[in-house]
């Protein structure tokens, strides 16, 4: 299969009980789900908080570091990435929010493979939520080349239609 020739995506084998660096105050997680484009299982890893908590509004950031890799050597995409998502309900009513994270690696000129994480949550007035975990993806390329990788995090507020996304794009240089 052509895809297999170009790239092998290694998905970490189990959804383990990872203690994610999430914090929620005056609110609750309604649901959380993770999945891979190819149906594989997904594991979360914590990234370092890069920014100060700026309560009072929605703040999202994304960071990625390009990497060099040898042919057939595994590279962690999320391991060289960071993200912060912070949202506070500054209204006087309960609000529903939707946090979305995506980690992707380029397979070839026309195909990306992605892992996704969605969190549905509700916050009471003055409640807040913060999180810095990302779905982990290790990739092995067996053909030299420059392959795009990216990390995207975002928050949507359904009641106000307010949304903010940050995307950081990097590359794996395989030689």
């Amino acid at each position: 299969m052509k895809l297999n020739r170009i790239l092998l995506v290694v998905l970490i084998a189990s959804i383990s009980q990872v203690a994610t660096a999430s914090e929620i105050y005056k609110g609750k997680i309604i649901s959380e789900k993770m999945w891979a484009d190819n149906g594989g299982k997904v594991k979360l890893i914590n990234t370092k908080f890069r920014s100060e908590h700026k309560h009072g509004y929605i703040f999202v950031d994304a960071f990625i570091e390009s990497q060099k890799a040898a042919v057939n050597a595994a590279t962690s995409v999320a391991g060289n990435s960071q993200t912060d998502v912070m949202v506070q309900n500054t209204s006087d009513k309960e609000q529903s929010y939707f946090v979305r994270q995506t980690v992707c690696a380029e397979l070839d000129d026309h195909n990306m493979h992605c892992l996704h994480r969605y969190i549905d949550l509700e916050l009471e007035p003055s409640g807040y939520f913060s999180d810095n975990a990302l779905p982990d993806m290790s990739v092995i390329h067996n053909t030299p080349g420059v392959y795009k990788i990216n990390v995207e995090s975002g928050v949507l507020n359904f009641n106000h239609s307010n949304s903010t996304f940050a995307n950081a794009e990097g590359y794996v240089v395989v030689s």
Partner: protein
Amino acid sequence: MKMKFILSLVAAAVISSPVMALQVTKGKVISHKEWSTSGVSASYLQPKSSASVTAHGATYISASVRPVQAAVGENATITNDSYLYIRNESNKTHSYYVGANVCIWHDINNQECVYSRDVVEVEPGGAIMNVNRPSLTVAFQQAGEYDTFAETYFNDNGVEKASYSQSHGKLTVN
């Protein structure tokens, strides 16, 4: 001077008409500023995309810097393929600080950067789109790996929302 020994910076010379890809609907640019360190000229390459400001529904930013290779003494261009779209979904007029930059470290203590920053006032329902590509051209006299990074960001002074994106790469000089 040590800096001259390590690095010679080449002002980007070929940009005859800088492309300012900032589009604003229902709003206005309050201020625009471009600057660079050490007298490096800022250049803004032609945006890759000609997407319309109405093509997106969500506030979205992206920064991207590609790894670059060059020979000793050869010019290398480092570019932030920056994208920014902000939509004012509130019922008040907001002022947004919008920026993009690209930088290279030429040693552990010193970096060279090209910056752009705008302050834009947007009415409710209005939007900003910026497909800015700040770019820096350098030539190193010493082989090695030099860290590069690109940043794209916006904030509204803590009123409602802010976002920040950073991409790190390398310039490899052989």
